[in-house]
C-alpha cells in the first residue's frame, strides 16, 4: 500500500472513529456573545509609581515546561502500564448508582431519553437502541441533576441523521436526513493532479458508547439534556463528568476501586510544583464530590486517580467538562489586574484572557493570586507590522511568581477587524516561567526572548522576528541593560519608562542591569518558553 493511501486511510478512519459530535451551547451564537463579553471586560488599577527599587538577586526560574509535561509524562507512564483488567471487572454493567437510583420510574425514563435531541447530525447508527441501554449513574450534584447512560451497539450500518424530535425520547422514529460532505466546499481545483477522493467503508460500530445528561437542580425529565457527545468507552476504565463553575465532579469506577482527587497543582515557595491526591470518600466505586468553583480554560486544574488492587488504573483530567447553563447567577468574580504602567495607546493586549487561563490552570480564585500587568504595548513583528506584547506576573499564595508573556497580532480599533495583511501568525508565547518567592513581582526585572512568527515556513524570508525585551520598574529608566551575544555586548537603553527592546543577540543567556552611573545592579536570566 502506498504511503499516500495509508495516510489517507488513517486520517479518515481516525476521524470517523471519533463518533458523533454535538455542538454545545458555548459554540452557538449565545455562547459566542458570552465569550465576547467576558474578553472585553477589564479593570485597570494603576499602581502608584512611587515604588522603592529594592534589587535582590532573583532565583533561577524553574522552567514551566517541566510542569505540565512532567505531569503528562507521569500520567502517560502510569496509563501506559495499567493493571491488566480483571475479566470480572465491569464498571458499567452493575445496578444503577447515585442518589436517584432508587427512583425506578425516573431511571427508566432517563434510559429512554433521546440521544439525538438538538443534534440532527448525530448518526443513528452510533446511537444504541433503547433496549440495549442502561443507566449507570443518576443523581443530584451541586451543579444540578446528572445521569450517565451507556449502551451496547449492535452491528449496525451508520445511517444519516434524524431531525430533532418534539419530546426527548427515542421512541419516536425520525425521518432520515442528508449528511453533507465536508469536502464539497473546496475551491475549484487547478492544473495539478488532484488526489482521488478516498471513500472509506461505512463504519460498523460495536462496543460500548456513553452519554451524559444534565439538568438543573430537581430537573424534570424534559429538562435533562445531553452535555457530552456519544463516545466510545472501555468497559474497564473509569468515566467522569465535571462542571467547571461549581466544581461538581462525578467519577464512575468499579466497585472496590479507590478514587482520589487533586483539585489543583501546588506551587511551593521554591517554585516546585506537585500534586496531592486525597481520598475523596468514594463508595462502591462511585465518587460524587464538589471541588469548588474554577475558571476552567485551556487546561483544567483538577485530576482524579483511580487505583485498583493497589495499581493505578488512571490518573487524568476529568473526561468531560462543561458549563451547561447561562453564566448568569454562576459568574465567578472577574480577575483583578493591577497595571504597573498603562497600556500603550491603541494596544489592548491579552491580560484578561491570560489571567483567566492562569486561574483555570492552577485552580485558584482571584483573591488567592496577585495579578500584575507589567507591559502592554508593541513588540517588533513581521513585515514591519508590530505585534502586541502582554507581560503579566501571577504571585501565588506561597510567594512564588509566574511570569507569562504572550503576543497577538496588533489589531486596529475598539472592535477588532481582520489583522493587517502580513501580520503574524497569531497568538504566541514568549515566556512562561516560575520563580521562587523573594523580590515582590512588581519590583522584578523581566528579560525575555520574544519570537513573532509570520505563519510562513522556515524557508520563507522574515519567518521569525526575535526580540530581546527587558522590562524594569519605571524608576530604573535612567539605567541600561547589557546582553552578551555571540557577536559581542549589546546595550539596551531603558529610558522608555524602564522598557528596552533590541533584536535578539544570538547566544545571549542573560542581561546585566546597570544603574545610570554604570554600577552593576544584578544579572537577570533571559526567560524563554
Amino acid at each position, binding site marked *: 500500500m502506498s504511503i499516500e493511501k495509508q495516510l489517507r486511510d488513517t486520517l479518515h478512519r*481516525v476521524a470517523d472513529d471519533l463518533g458523533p459530535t454535538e455542538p454545545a451551547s458555548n459554540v452557538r451564537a449565545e455562547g459566542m456573545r458570552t465569550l465576547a463579553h467576558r474578553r472585553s471586560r477589564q479593570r485597570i488599577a494603576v499602581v502608584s509609581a512611587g515604588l522603592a527599587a529594592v534589587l535582590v538577586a532573583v532565583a533561577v526560574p524553574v522552567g514551566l515546561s517541566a510542569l505540565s509535561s512532567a505531569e503528562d509524562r507521569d500520567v502517560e507512564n502510569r496509563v501506559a502500564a495499567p493493571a491488566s483488567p480483571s475479566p470480572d471487572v465491569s464498571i458499567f454493567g452493575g445496578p444503577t448508582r447515585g442518589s436517584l437510583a432508587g427512583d425506578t420510574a425516573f431511571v427508566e425514563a432517563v434510559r429512554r431519553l433521546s440521544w439525538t435531541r438538538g443534534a440532527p447530525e448525530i448518526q443513528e447508527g452510533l446511537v444504541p437502541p433503547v433496549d440495549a441501554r442502561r443507566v449507570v449513574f443518576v443523581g443530584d450534584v451541586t451543579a444540578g441533576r446528572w445521569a450517565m447512560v451507556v449502551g451496547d451497539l449492535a452491528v449496525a450500518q451508520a445511517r444519516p441523521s434524524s431531525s430533532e424530535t418534539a419530546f426527548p425520547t427515542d421512541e419516536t422514529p425520525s425521518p432520515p436526513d442528508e449528511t453533507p460532505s465536508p469536502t464539497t466546499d473546496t*475551491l475549484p481545483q487547478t492544473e495539478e493532479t488532484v488526489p482521488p477522493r478516498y471513500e472509506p467503508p461505512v463504519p460498523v460500530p460495536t462496543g460500548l458508547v456513553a452519554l451524559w445528561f444534565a439538568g438543573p437542580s430537581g430537573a424534570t425529565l424534559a429538562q435533562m439534556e445531553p452535555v457530552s457527545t456519544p463516545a466510545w468507552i*472501555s468497559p474497564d476504565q473509569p468515566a467522569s463528568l465535571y462542571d467547571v463553575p461549581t466544581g461538581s465532579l462525578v467519577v464512575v469506577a468499579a466497585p472496590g476501586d479507590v478514587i482520589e482527587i487533586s483539585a489543583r497543582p501546588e506551587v511551593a515557595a521554591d517554585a516546585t510544583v506537585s500534586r496531592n491526591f486525597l481520598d475523596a470518600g468514594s463508595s462502591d466505586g462511585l465518587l460524587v464530590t464538589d471541588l469548588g468553583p474554577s475558571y476552567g480554560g485551556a487546561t483544567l486544574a483538577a485530576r482524579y486517580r483511580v487505583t485498583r488492587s493497589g495499581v493505578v488504573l488512571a490518573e487524568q483530567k476529568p473526561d468531560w467538562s462543561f458549563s451547561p447553563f447561562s453564566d448568569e447567577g454562576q459568574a465567578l468574580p472577574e480577575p483583578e489586574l493591577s497595571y504597573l504602567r498603562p497600556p500603550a495607546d491603541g494596544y489592548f493586549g491579552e491580560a484578561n484572557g491570560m489571567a483567566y487561563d492562569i486561574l483555570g490552570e492552577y485552580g485558584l480564585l482571584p483573591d488567592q493570586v496577585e495579578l500584575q500587568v507589567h507591559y502592554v504595548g508593541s513588540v517588533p513583528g513581521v513585515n514591519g507590522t508590530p505585534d502586541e506584547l502582554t507581560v503579566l506576573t501571577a504571585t501565588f499564595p506561597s510567594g512564588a511568581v509566574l511570569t507569562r508573556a504572550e503576543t497577538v497580532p496588533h489589531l486596529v480599533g475598539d472592535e477588532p477587524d481582520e489583522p493587517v495583511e502580513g501580520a503574524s501568525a497569531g497568538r504566541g508565547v514568549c515566556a512562561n516561567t516560575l520563580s521562587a518567592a523573594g523580590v515582590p513581582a512588581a519590583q522584578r526585572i523581566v528579560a525575555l526572548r520574544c519570537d513573532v512568527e509570520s505563519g510562513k515556513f522556515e524557508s520563507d524570508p522574515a519567518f521569525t522576528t526575535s526580540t530581546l525585551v527587558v522590562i524594569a520598574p519605571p524608576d530604573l529608566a535612567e539605567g541600561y541593560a547589557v546582553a552578551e551575544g555571540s557577536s559581542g555586548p549589546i546595550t539596551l537603553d531603558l529610558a522608555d519608562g524602564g522598557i528596552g527592546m533590541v533584536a535578539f543577540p544570538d547566544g545571549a543567556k542573560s542581561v546585566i542591569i546597570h544603574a545610570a552611573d554604570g554600577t552593576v545592579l544584578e544579572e537577570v536570566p533571559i526567560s524563554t518558553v
Partner: protein
Amino acid sequence: MAFDAFVGLRYAALVRFGYVLTGNRASAEDLVQTALFRTYRRWERLDDQVDPFAYVRRAMVNAHISWTRLLSSREQLFSEPPERAGEEDVHDLERLQMWGHLATLPARMRAVLVLRFYEDLSEAETARILGCSVGTIKSQTFRGLARLRRDLAESDPDLIDDEPASVRSRTRERNHR
C-alpha cells in the same frame, strides 16, 4: 444562513478536522470554538462569496499553528485514536503506527498533509490557506511523506512497499517543541 444553523450543520465535520489536525479531541473542540468565535464576530460581514466552512477551517489551521507555541509549555496530548471496537487486525497496527508518527511531524507539515490527504485540497488551495507558495506545499508534502515512509519502515519494514532507496535522513527533526 444563520450562524447557529451553520454550527448545527458543520460542527461535527469541523471537530473531525480539528482532531486529525491536533491529534487530541479536547484540543480539537477548543480549536473549533476559537475559530467559530473569530468567525462569529465577522459573520454579518462575510459576503456570499465566502464559504463559511472554508473560512472556519482556515482560522482553525492558523490558530493551531500559533497554538503549538502556546501549548508547548502546557499540556498537549496527541491521544491514541478511538478504538474501533471489534476490529483487531494488522490494519489497526498500521493505523496506530501512522497516527503515532504523524504526531512527531512539525505542526505546519502535519497541517499540509491533513489538508492534502484528509480534506483532499489541491496544492493551490492548501497554499492559500497557509499563506505560502505552491512550491512550499510541494516541498512540505514531499518531506512529510518521506518522513512517514521512513518512520514506518523503521517500525516495520513490511508495512511499506514503495520506499524509495534515496529516502534516508540522519537527523530526526524535533517537533514544535
